């Protein structure tokens, strides 16, 4: 029975991490940059659902997605696009700056006190196991998102163009692909996924502060690296790996205080043993 609970928790936590990790990995693969402000998009989504929830839960979710996507587009256009072709270090520092900007803006407009919501989704009883409805929705939603994204990338023109740009930007341009447009689409998808993850996290922990996105953000980044940064299936696998570690640690009282340490230790081990991550490919440097 505990095993079933662990699997369900692992899927739910892992699905959330995977949704965030997909944003990191797609932006890395396509725009060739680490978007360290990605975690703060989760925070933006979290605040939005808290503010709009009293109106209607559905409107809250939609508002979260719309607002996060808007912030993602504005950040891409104003902060990252002007740096296309700049040194990776300049882009990285800019991303950290954007992260601080988003956190500080949240503090200015919404104050430094955490905002909370309480909403009980209830439980359902399956056999002798009682599962929270929120956990089930999280699992179903993250699976749906991952399937949809996989189909989008494989079977649409824009999706295939994303693969082409991530593999060889110059050759993609020779096909007539507008690279800036593809990068924009990537930010839109990544921000929408972060918004959905943010909504689930808020319902789980029930309050949101300005650094709300930091920890899930860094863990999802670790998940993306474990799975192989740049690889979409890799981000899903990496997310689930961390999710299951967290679920297992949560079930074992002796391990649970060390959950974070164990997760990051696994990251270090993976980097030592297979630096490209589980599904990452070593790219040949062209000369």
């Amino acid at each position: 029975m505990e095993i079933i609970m662990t699997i369900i928790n692992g899927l739910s936590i892992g699905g959330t991490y995977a949704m965030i990790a997909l944003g990191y990995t797609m932006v890395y693969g396509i725009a060739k940059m680490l978007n360290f402000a990605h975690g703060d998009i989760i925070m933006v989504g979290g605040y939005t659902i808290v503010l709009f929830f009293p109106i209607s839960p559905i409107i809250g979710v939609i508002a979260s997605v719309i607002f996060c996507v808007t912030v993602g587009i504005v950040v891409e256009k104003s902060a990252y696009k002007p740096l296309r072709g700049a040194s990776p270090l300049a882009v990285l520092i800019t991303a950290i700056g954007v992260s601080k900007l988003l956190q500080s803006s949240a503090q200015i407009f919404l104050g430094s006190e955490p905002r909370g919501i309480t909403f009980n989704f209830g439980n359902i009883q399956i056999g002798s196991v009682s599962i929270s409805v929120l956990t089930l929705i999280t699992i179903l939603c993250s699976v749906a998102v991952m399937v949809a994204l996989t189909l989008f990338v494989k079977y649409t023109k824009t999706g295939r163009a994303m693969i082409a740009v991530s593999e060889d930007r110059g050759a993609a341009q020779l096909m007539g692909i507008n690279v800036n447009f593809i990068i924009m689409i990537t930010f839109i998808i990544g921000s929408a996924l972060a918004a959905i993850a943010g909504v689930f996290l808020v319902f789980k922990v029930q309050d949101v502060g300005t650094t709300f996105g930091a920890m899930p953000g860094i863990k999802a980044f670790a998940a993306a690296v474990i799975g192989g940064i740049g690889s979409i299936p890799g981000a899903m696998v990496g997310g689930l790996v961390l999710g299951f570690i967290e679920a297992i640690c949560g079930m074992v009282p002796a391990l649970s205080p060390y959950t974070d340490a164990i997760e990051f230790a696994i990251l270090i081990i993976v980097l030592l043993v297979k630096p490209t991550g589980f599904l990452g490919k070593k790219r040949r440097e062209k000369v």
Partner: protein
Amino acid sequence: MALLEVKNLDVHYGVIQAIKNISFEVNEGEIVTLIGANGAGKTTTMQSIMGLIHPSHGEIYYNGQKINGIPSHKIVKLGMTQVPEGRRIFSELTVYENLLMGAYTRNDKDGIEKDFKDIYALFPRLEERKNQIAGTLSGGEQQMLAMGRAIMSKPKLLMLDEPSMGLSPLLVDQVFEIIKHFHEIGTTILLVEQNANKSLAISDRAYVLENGKIVLTGTGKELLASEEIKKAYLGG
């Protein structure tokens, strides 16, 4: 009027000048070759035309329209594309998907379907392997795929950068046959090659690049007969 006209082009990489004031033109229906040794500036010239690198001085005209400064993807829409050096196929996509990427700018479903048929007729190997991941193809097959992918955009002007590089003599012959075929179906060709013999033989005109400058120009036949060229490029 020339289909492609390059006027007084200068390209710098930092302080190093790779292209020094070159001018040349390609008329509609021609096959024109740029020949030159490694590092002469052939690839730099090609990439400048496609807007992948930005010249420090000079103008490039396509059909009378100035195209330097226009983003590469818009240049492709105007009707020209390039088979890049080293093929640069999308190794994670299938053969079919690679060809489909070539047709990225097109929306005429029927026309695309017809062109798939033409390409498969021209390269039966590609049809046999259409669902195979392109990275698993042999070098020769990858070159065929790169050429097929480029022609899928239905370019008026097709540029090929060292298409025979690294291929066996048999495949080199095949590549030149295909270039001739593309020309016969109405495509204007700008070719960059180190294989001066084969490329001059099919060219209407050619330019010789040396250290970023055009040092010699003439018809394919004239250059094939030229003593200088024989010494420097034809091994005799």
